[in-house]
């Protein structure tokens, strides 16, 4: 995580995470992922998520088997193959994730997940052409 952040920040773009846990819950998580210093915003009520238009999954999406197979595959990769293990999830598994490039308080680029298992190209998204 830290190496990817440093690659992006070398281009002049900072990186920040928004999460739905408390700061006390987030601190050990980010430390375990190797980037304890990264900027992060605790948003337990999902107010920023709603402000950025990140909705909860629909009933159809929840029961879409192909979505869940991909989500479980990603979870397996993280927990077993990359050896991060299992824990009690913090946050809202039904809230869609997303990634946005924000400059001077305005969204200038965005990636809205079609499924929770999408993998955006963060390095490309981080390029700000107006800075």
């Amino acid at each position, binding site marked *: 995580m830290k190496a990817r952040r440093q690659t*992006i920040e070398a281009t*002049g*773009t*900072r*990186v*920040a*995470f*928004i*999460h*739905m*846990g408390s*700061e006390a819950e*987030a*601190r050990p*998580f980010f430390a375990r992922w190797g980037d304890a210093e990264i*900027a*992060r*915003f*605790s*948003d337990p009520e999902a*107010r*920023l*998520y709603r*402000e*950025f238009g*990140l909705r909860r999954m629909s009933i159809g999406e929840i029961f879409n088997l192909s979505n869940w197979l991909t989500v479980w595959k990603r979870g397996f990769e993280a927990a077993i193959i990359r050896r991060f293990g299992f*824990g*009690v*999830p*913090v*946050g*809202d*598994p039904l*809230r*869609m*994730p*997303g*990634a*946005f*490039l*924000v*400059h*001077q*308080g*305005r969204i*200038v680029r965005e990636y809205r997940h079609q499924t*929770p298992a999408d993998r955006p190209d*963060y390095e490309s*998204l*981080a390029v*700000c052409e107006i*800075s």
Partner: protein
Amino acid sequence: MEMMETIRNQHGESLREMSARQPVLVIFLRHYG
């Protein structure tokens, strides 16, 4: 975009303040743990 000013990171900085000087790639997590 009121929440960009209201909610602050672990260093006390809002998203609007963070993005004032340089762009910020904001990644929203679904859950973690």
